[in-house]
């Protein structure tokens, strides 16, 4: 990163590594740091989304290079490292959530696959499919029955039925034959995942997995048996989780949901206790001590207490890409990292912006923690798939005060007030001496001007010369454009009905021109019915007959059938023909 000498002295971060072609496409929820081999060096585990369709990989980095890579079957939605037992050495397991499954890796080997329990199936739907199996009803009746179920049933349909309702009639028969023998089931998908310590506060305590599902539920899993220990229903689909406390003692889960609300769940409650309504979609959720910091889609950062009291709002210069917590325990520093769309990382402690770091590309995932042997490491992946690793300097001190610039720069720019010369001063002197005469002369001239303007206007009205109709009953607008360099020109008339609701019918267009100079194919024709608001382009072709470079005016009249005075008129000054005249 190119920084000036002055800047480098004050920079808080050391650029440890930058690989623009690391090919890591991921989000903050799929990045984890853990000591996987128990050798005191933290590794980086990344759930790479690949292209979103294929090439999903679980990648493990050590230092600046990748040490292993595992193919994932489906798109990962969350990657976590957690301790599932008290065995020595304390090597954490990696949990990868994708679809309805959680894949557990131990020592970087597949170890266990947890499947979410299937959901209850609509009994009527089950009966309908049973009848299909016995060939009692045909595909069309099946479709009708499923549709009525979908509209009034309180239990949603299974994926198979929904898929069936989308099919074209000719695809139904094969689909039914293919699927009718399999039992019907309904499954949900994991939306987000977090860990919760089981009964100890320590870093290396055994922890439970907390899962948020598309079925609007939060489940807490037992770390060893992988059974669901607790379940809480939510009013919407959870997208961001923050967990604190211990499962056996007291815990608190802060959930940001897709409906733009934040809910707080406590141990003894079956329903969320507090609800914070945001004014737009949350894009990131971080808890600092006891306060919630949430990033919103409208380039704002809000802070709330856990009871839902709003503390502050910060307006950001660009949209938020992702957010993360910077928790440097040995220095007691807790701050919020916000990656912005203008490739900057902002660091907020409370509402104060304490550091701004420029990155080479827009950052899509952030992770701060111990990597390798270094405590304060910030790992970022970029939109283009790059990997950036920065290390916090040992000597870096973040000042408490806001480093955001004070008054805007524009304040110091001088106003552009024009200067006055001697000419202006002389003029004011003359005005002071002859004020009365000046006023009188001007008033006389103004009267004359009004008179001549009124005369000209009356004349134009009489002959309907104006291109905008003055008649309130028939508000029309006409303008003409000429295209081409000659001898043939294209003359386009744009006619528009200006009334609110009333269409105009029975209009004619006629051209008046010097027949020795120009020829127009159709010099008199009918206008189609004019619907209010639309512009009708009417084209004609004009041929210039003269070869001596003479131009003239063509007059266009819009007439009403049965009256002889035109409604409106346009004068088109034809350009000089630049081509050879057609003899």
């Amino acid at each position, binding site marked *: 990163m190119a920084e000036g000498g002055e800047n480098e002295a004050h920079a808080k971060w050391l650029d*440890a590594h930058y690989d623009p072609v690391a090919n890591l496409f991921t989000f903050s929820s799929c990045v984890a740091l853990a000591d996987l081999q128990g050798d005191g060096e933290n590794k980086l585990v990344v759930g790479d989304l690949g292209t979103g369709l294929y090439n999903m990989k679980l990648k493990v980095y050590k230092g600046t290079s990748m040490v292993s890579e595992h193919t994932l079957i489906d798109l990962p939605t969350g990657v976590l490292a957690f301790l599932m037992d008290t065995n020595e050495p304390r090597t954490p397991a990696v949990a990868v959530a994708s679809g309805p499954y959680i894949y557990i890796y131990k020592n970087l080997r597949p170890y266990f696959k947890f499947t979410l329990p299937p959901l209850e199936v609509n009994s009527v739907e089950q009966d309908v499919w049973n009848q299909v199996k016995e060939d009692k009803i045909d595909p069309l009746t099946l479709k009708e029955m499923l549709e009525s179920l979908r509209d009034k049933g309180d239990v949603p349909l299974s994926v198979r039925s929904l898929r069936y309702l989308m099919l074209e009639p000719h695809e139904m028969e094969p689909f039914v034959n293919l699927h009718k023998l399999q039992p019907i089931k309904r499954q949900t998908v994991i939306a987000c995942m977090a860990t919760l310590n089981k009964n100890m506060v320590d870093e290396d305590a055994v922890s439970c997995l907390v899962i948020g599902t598309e079925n609007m539920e939060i489940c807490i899993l037992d770390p060893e048996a992988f059974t669901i220990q607790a379940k809480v229903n939510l009013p919407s689909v959870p997208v961001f989780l923050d967990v604190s406390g211990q499962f056996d003692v007291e815990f608190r889960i802060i959930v940001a949901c897709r409906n733009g609300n934040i809910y707080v769940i406590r141990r003894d409650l079956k329903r969320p206790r507090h609800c914070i309504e945001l004014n737009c979609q949350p894009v990131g959720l971080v808890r600092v001590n006891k306060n919630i910091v949430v990033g919103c889609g409208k380039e704002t950062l809000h802070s709330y207490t856990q009871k839902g009291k709003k503390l502050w709002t910060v307006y950001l210069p660009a949209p938020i890409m992702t957010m993360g917590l910077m928790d440097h325990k040995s220095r007691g520093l807790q701050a919020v990292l916000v990656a912005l769309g203008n490739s900057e990382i902002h660091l907020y402690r409370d509402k104060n912006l304490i550091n701004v770091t420029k990155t080479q590309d827009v950052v899509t995932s952030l992770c701060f923690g111990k990597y390798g042997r*270094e405590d304060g490491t910030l790992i970022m992946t970029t939109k283009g798939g790059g990997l950036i690793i920065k290390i916090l300097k040992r000597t870096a001190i973040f000042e408490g005060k806001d480093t955001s610039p004070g008054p805007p720069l524009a304040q110091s720019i001088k106003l552009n007030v024009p200067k006055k010369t001697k000419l202006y001063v002389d003029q004011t002197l003359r005005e002071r001496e002859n004020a009365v005469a000046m006023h009188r002369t001007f008033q006389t001239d103004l009267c004359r001007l009004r008179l001549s303007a009124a005369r000209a206007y009356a004349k134009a009205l009489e002959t309907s010369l104006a291109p905008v109709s003055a008649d309130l009953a028939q508000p029309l607008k006409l303008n003409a454009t000429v295209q081409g360099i000659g001898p043939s020109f294209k003359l386009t008339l744009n006619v528009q009905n200006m009334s609110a609701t009333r269409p105009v019918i029975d209009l004619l267009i006629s051209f008046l021109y010097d027949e020795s100079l120009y020829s127009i194919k159709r010099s008199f024709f009918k206008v189609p019915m004019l619907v209010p608001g639309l512009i009708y382009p009417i084209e004609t072709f004009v041929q210039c007959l003269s070869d001596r470079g003479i131009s003239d005016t063509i007059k266009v009249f819009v007439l009403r059938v049965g009256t002889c005075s035109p409604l409106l008129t346009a004068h088109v000054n034809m350009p000089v023909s630049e081509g050879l005249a057609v003899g």
Partner: protein
Amino acid sequence: MGLFDKLAGWLGLKKKEVHVLCLGLDNSGKTTIINYLKPSNAQVQDIVPTIGFSIENFKTSGLSFTVFDMSGQGRYRNLWEHYYKEGQAIIFVIDSSDKLRMVVAKEELDTLLNHPDIKHRRIPILFFANKMDLRDALSSVKVSQMLRLENIKDKAWHICASDAIKGEGLQEGVDWLQDQIKAMKT
């Protein structure tokens, strides 16, 4: 200094004592290097991360070294500067297989060189590009490039590739250090 000591000094029986600071990041191999240089009966088998610092002694053909083996862990690094005044030479150890923290090593080296107790003294610095046996280790040339050693103009410095477990490269470095110190004294 007693009369006997002076006498021993003149006769060359008692070696001159030199204080050396051994610095570097944690896990770079400082204690292992010092351990290897000690006489074989004083060497320890198990090397654990140093807490704070420890004082070790070893002798070469012409000099007796007292080494302050400092802990390189982040929280102990601010101890280093308290011993800068005593140091007559510096051994700076770098883990050449740890590419990620090369910038941290460079940062610590820069802070060391700009410290008022070090800046204006012409003390020799010996760099060990340690852990040369590891597969992904950088060469000593590459390490000196990454640390920008060519910018050190006012001090004598030397970089050695070393493997502190087998002891490769250590003797070369210590010989250089001894020559430098002798040249300074005279």
